[in-house]
């Protein structure tokens, strides 16, 4: 599975979204599932899936799918 696919799975499972959801278009606080509680669930799921520990700044900056990929890249995770 690619990083993109793994991150998509993290979004769908942690935010309890239908698999058909276009996660790349989601923005933090603009979807009912992605509120602050959902955000911390998403962060925990991402950290577990990729075995990383995000900095507080990264948690706050993580506001869309693309940012998620950037954060993973900063942790050395790319395809």
């Amino acid at each position, binding site marked *: 599975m690619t990083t993109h696919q793994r991150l998509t799975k993290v979004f769908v499972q942690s935010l309890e979204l239908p698999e058909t959801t276009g996660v790349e278009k989601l923005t933090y606080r603009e979807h009912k599932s992605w509120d602050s509680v959902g955000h911390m669930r998403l962060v925990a799921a991402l950290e577990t899936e990729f075995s990383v520990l995000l*900095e507080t700044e990264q948690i706050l900056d993580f506001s869309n799918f693309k940012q998620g990929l950037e954060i993973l890249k900063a942790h050395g995770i790319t395809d």
Partner: protein
Amino acid sequence: MASLIDLSGKVALVTGASRGIGRACAEILAAHGAKVALNAVSDPAALAKQAEELQRRHSQTCWALPADAADASAVTQLYKDLLQKAGRLDILIANAGIMEDALIGMIMPEQIQRTLAVNIGGVLNHIQMAARLMKRNAKDGGSIVAMSSIIGRVGNTGQMLYGASKAAIIGAVLSAAKELASDNIRVNAIAPGFIDTDMTAKLPKDIREKRIANIGMGRIGTPEEVARTALYLASSLSGYVTGQIVGVDGGMIV
């Protein structure tokens, strides 16, 4: 009779573990089967030696993870190291603290900054990171025990700054307990009274005797007596206890 408390498979982190109450907490957790990470800010070599000795005495894996609790970046790095070494966290004893007594009007701004940074900033830094690791434990959750003080509950002359920092811990614990309960993470505080540590050993003899005279049980407490309460709060014996401030003070009146 087998012990009621078995922490086998659990990983504990103790801050301020090099002496006094923190040292006693590390000892009792390892003695009951936990793998223990020791944290302190000064003398990393001595901390490493302490971890080795603890490991040898209790046949438990122990690690030394030096870091300043007041430094958020250093605390984050500590948790990255812990995750790499231990793979999980079940118990946090947030014990690191400093005490500098001064009368009102004689407290330096630097003292305010440092005391709040260590005593409450450090606890906040650790709870933030520990909770994130404990959430990964799913239904097993975790237990966070923060070290407040009787002074944070009732105050004392010459201890406005220390009392403020320890009262702040109580506020943090009460809020964290509510926020983390749904993740099965319990958060409690201990409010020790007059305990026989390096911190209290510095007091002049007359003040020491006066304080002991105000203790219902007529004696100073030991770090081990505080550690036993920490053990109870860390274990499943207190599995339905959260958001509590437990006094360990022998009936002290301040």
